[in-house]
C-alpha cells in the first residue's frame, strides 16, 4: 500500500533552489547509439581497480566479462557492446584532477551481439542471499547514485539486522532527471529490484523516499505498488529541499534516525540504495544482464535537445551531445553530475562511467563564472544551511590556515560536500574547495605517516641487523682468541702431538719392515 504521509522529521538547513528539471523531463529515455570507440576505465567504483582479463586484439561480445574485481571491494566490468579490444592503456577520464587512468578501449563492430547470459533467477525469494549477492557481484553493480560503492559488498550485512531498506528516489539536485524518468518508464523494475534487495538483506520493510517535485514518477510507482498489493513496501513523499537525497539526510527524513558520525547506516539498522541501482539489480537477477549501460541526463542551455538517454558505459560525452542535437552557441561549461556537487570537465572527449548520472552543458547565465572571493565576515549564513550541522566558517578558517587537526576537531569528515554553505556565502568564498583541499591533504598526510613509520621500522631493523652481525663477528673473533690463549694451559699443542704421533707411526712401520727383512735373510 502506498502512503503519502507527511514526514515527521526535517533536517537542519538545506536550500530551496530552482530545480530546472522540466527541461529534460519531456520525452522518455532514448536509446543512445553505440559510439565507434568506447573507453572503459578500470576504476569506476570505490575500491581497487578491476584487472583486465582480455588482451589487445581480442574480440568480445556484449556483456562479456572484460575485467575482474581485483579485491573484495572492487567491481567487475563487462563489454558494453560487441567489438575488438584495441588498447589497454591510460586514457583521459572524467576526474577533477584531469589525470588519466587505465582504460580498456573497445572498437565496436556495429553488431551489438550479446554473449550468452547466465540464468535468470526468477525464483529469487527461495535463494540464499549469498548466491544473489554473487550475481550482483558478477554483474558489476555499484551504487548508481554517484557513490559507486560495490553493491554486493554493501548488501553483505554480515549478520547485522536491517529493519528498513530505503530506496533513494529523491534526486534532489537541480537539472538531474534520470531517476525520475526511470521511475516513470520502468516502475516495475524499480519495485522488482527493491523486493530482491529486501530479500537479500532481510529487511522488515522497504521505504521509497521521493521528493514531491516528481508527481508523475510518484503516480507511476504508486500505481505499480497498488497493482501488486505488496504489504511492507511503501512510498514516502518528502518535501523538496536540497539535499534531501543525501543518504544521511534521507534516512533522517524517513525515520528520524541519525547515522552516527563515523558510522554507517547499518549501525541504525538501515540500508540505503539508489533507485537506479535497484533497477540494475532487477536486470541482473531477473534477466541475467550485467551492468553495461545507465540512464544519463543531458541538459542545459548549451545542448540543443535536452533529455535522457540510456548510454553504454564508455561512450564519449561528445557522442551524446551530438545525438541530442549538438551544442548551441551558448555552451559555456560542462559539468558532470549536478550543479551543486558535480565537477566541471575540461573537455567533452571523456567517457561516461557507471557513476555519470548527468551532464549539464550550461550557458553562462545558467552557471556563471565564480565571483571573486571576499574575506569571510563571519555572518553565519553558512551555519544556517549546513545539513550536517557543522560550523562551515570555522572549518574554512582552519582549512585556510592549514590547521588540519582543528578541522578534524570541527568534524571535517562529516561534511557531505553538498555546497549549501558556498551557495549562500555573501563573500563568494569557495568553501567546499577548501574542505576538499583539507580532506585530501589529511589523507595524503596519513599515507606519508604510514610510509615513514614503516620506513623507520625497516631502518631500525637494518641497524639492528648490522649490530647483530657485528656482534656475532666479534663473538667469533673472541672465541678464536680464547682458543689460542687456552692452548699452553693444556701442555701439549695438539698439532705437535699429531705430528709426533704420525712420525711415531712411520718410525714404527719402518722398524717393523726392518725386522721383516732381517728375518728373510
Amino acid at each position, binding site marked *: 500500500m502506498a502512503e503519502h504521509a507527511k514526514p515527521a522529521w526535517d533536517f537542519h538547513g538545506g536550500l530551496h533552489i530552482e530545480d530546472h528539471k522540466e527541461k529534460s523531463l519531456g520525452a522518455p529515455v532514448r536509446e543512445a547509439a553505440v559510439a565507434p570507440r568506447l573507453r572503459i576505465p578500470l576504476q569506476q567504483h570505490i575500491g581497487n581497480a578491476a584487472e583486465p582479463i582480455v588482451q589487445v586484439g581480442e574480440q568480445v561480445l556484449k556483456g562479456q566479462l572484460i575485467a575482474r574485481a581485483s579485491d573484495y571491494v572492487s567491481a567487475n566490468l563487462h563489454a558494453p557492446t560487441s567489438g575488438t579490444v584495441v588498447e589497454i592503456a591510460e586514457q583521459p577520464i572524467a576526474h577533477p584532477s584531469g589525470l588519466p587512468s587505465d582504460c580498456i578501449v573497445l572498437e565496436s563492430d556495429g553488431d551489438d551481439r550479446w554473449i550468452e547470459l547466465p540464468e535468470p533467477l526468477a525464483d529469487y525469494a527461495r535463494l540464499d542471499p549469498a548466491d544473489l549477492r554473487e550475481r550482483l557481484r558478477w554483474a558489476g553493480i555499484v551504487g548508481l547514485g554517484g557513490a559507486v560503492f560495490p553493491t554486493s559488498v554493501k548488501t553483505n550485512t554480515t549478520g547485522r539486522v536491517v529493519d528498513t531498506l530505503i530506496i533513494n528516489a529523491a534526486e534532489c539536485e537541480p537539472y538531474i532527471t534520470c531517476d525520475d524518468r526511470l521511475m516513470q518508464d520502468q516502475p516495475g523494475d524499480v519495485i522488482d529490484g527493491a523486493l530482491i534487495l529486501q530479500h537479500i538483506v532481510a529487511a522488515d520493510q522497504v521505504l521509497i523516499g521521493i521528493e514531491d517535485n516528481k508527481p508523475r514518477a510518484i503516480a507511476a510507482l504508486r500505481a505499480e505498488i497498488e497493482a501488486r498489493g505488496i504489504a511492507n513496501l511503501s512510498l514516502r513523499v518528502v518535501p523538496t529541499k536540497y539535499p534531501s537525497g543525501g543518504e544521511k539526510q534521507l534516512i533522517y527524513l524517513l525515520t528520524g534516525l541519525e547515522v552516527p558520525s563515523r558510522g554507517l547506516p547499518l549501525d541504525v539498522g538501515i540500508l540505503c540504495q539508489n533507485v537506479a541501482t535497484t533497477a540494475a539489480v532487477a536486470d541482473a537477477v531477473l534477466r541475467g544482464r550485467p551492468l553495461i549501460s545507465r540512464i544519463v541526463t543531458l541538459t542545459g542551455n548549451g545542448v540543443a535537445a535536452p533529455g535522457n538517454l540510456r548510454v553504454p558505459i564508455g561512450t564519449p560525452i561528445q557522442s551524446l551531445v551530438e545525438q541530442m542535437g549538438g551544442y548551441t552557441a551558448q555552451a559555456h561549461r560542462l559539468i558532470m553530475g549536478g550543479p551543486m556537487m558535480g565537477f566541471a570537465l575540461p573537455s567533452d572527449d571523456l567517457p561516461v562511467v557507471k557513476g555519470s548520472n548527468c551532464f549539464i552543458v550550461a550557458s553562462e547565465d545558467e552557471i556563471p563564472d565564480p565571483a571573486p572571493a571576499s574575506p569571510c565576515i563571519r555572518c553565519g549564513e553558512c551555519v544556517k544551511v549546513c545539513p550536517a550541522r557543522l560550523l562551515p566558517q570555522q572549518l574554512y578558517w582552519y582549512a585556510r590556515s592549514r590547521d588540519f587537526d582543528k578541522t578534524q576537531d570541527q568534524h571535517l569528515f562529516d561534511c557531505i560536500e553538498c555546497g549549501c554553505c558556498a551557495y549562500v556565502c555573501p563573500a563568494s568564498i569557495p568553501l567546499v574547495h577548501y574542505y576538499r*583541499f583539507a580532506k585530501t591533504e589529511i589523507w595524503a598526510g596519513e599515507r*606519508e605517516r604510514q610510509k615513514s613509520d614503516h620506513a623507520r621500522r625497516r631502518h631500525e631493523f637494518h641497524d639492528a641487523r648490522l649490530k647483530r652481525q657485528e656482534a656475532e663477528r666479534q663473538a667469533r673473533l673472541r672465541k678464536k682468541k680464547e682458543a689460542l690463549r687456552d692452548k699452553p694451559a693444556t701442555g701439549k699443542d695438539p698439532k705437535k702431538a699429531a705430528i709426533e704421533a704420525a712420525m711415531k707411526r712411520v718410525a714404527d712401520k719402518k722398524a717393523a719392515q726392518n725386522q721383516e727383512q732381517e728375518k728373510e735373510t
Partner: protein
Amino acid sequence: MGVLSAILTLTLLAAVFGLLLGYAAVRFRVEGDPIVDQIDALLPQTQCGQCGYAGCRPYAEAIASGEADINLCPPGGEAGMTALADLLGRDPVPLEDEEAAAKPKSVAFIREKECIGCTLCIQACPVDAILGAAKQMHSVIADECTGCELCLPPCPVECIDMIPIRETPETWRWPYPAHNPWLEERGNG
C-alpha cells in the same frame, strides 16, 4: 606586631601554595615522549643524510640538543618544517635548500642488464629495500624504497635511475584555492 603578623601570614600562604604546586607537578605530570622521539616521529624517515646528519634519528637528536635548525630536511618539505615548528613552539624558518625540497618524490630503479651483482648498493640502502646477493641480480623493491638516493654513489656501473612517483587520480590532492583578488598586488586587479 602588625608587620610581624603580615610577614607570617604571607610566608604561610607562600608555603601552602608552594606545596600545592609541588603536589600538582607530581600528581598531574603528563607522561610524554621524550622530545627526540616526538621530533623523529615528524621526520620522513628517508634516512638520506641531506640534512648533514647520518639519518633521521641523529638529526632529531641534533634538533633536540639545539645543534641543528628545523629547516634542513628537504624530503620533509615545508609541511615537515612547519610541523616541527609547531611541536617545538618556534617560528617557521625558510627551508635551507628549497630546490631539493621541491624535487618530486622518486623511487630507485636498477637497470638489470647492467647490474654486475657487486652488492655495494645493498649495503648502502638504509631500509634494506634492495633484493639480491653477491653475483646475483639486484632489484629495488619499489614499495620499500624511500627515495634517499644513497645507492647511487656506490654503484660502480651507475646503473640506478631515480624514477619520479606518478600521481594517480587516487593520490591526487585538491590544490589550495587560489586567485583571490583581495590579495592581489596593486595593478593586477
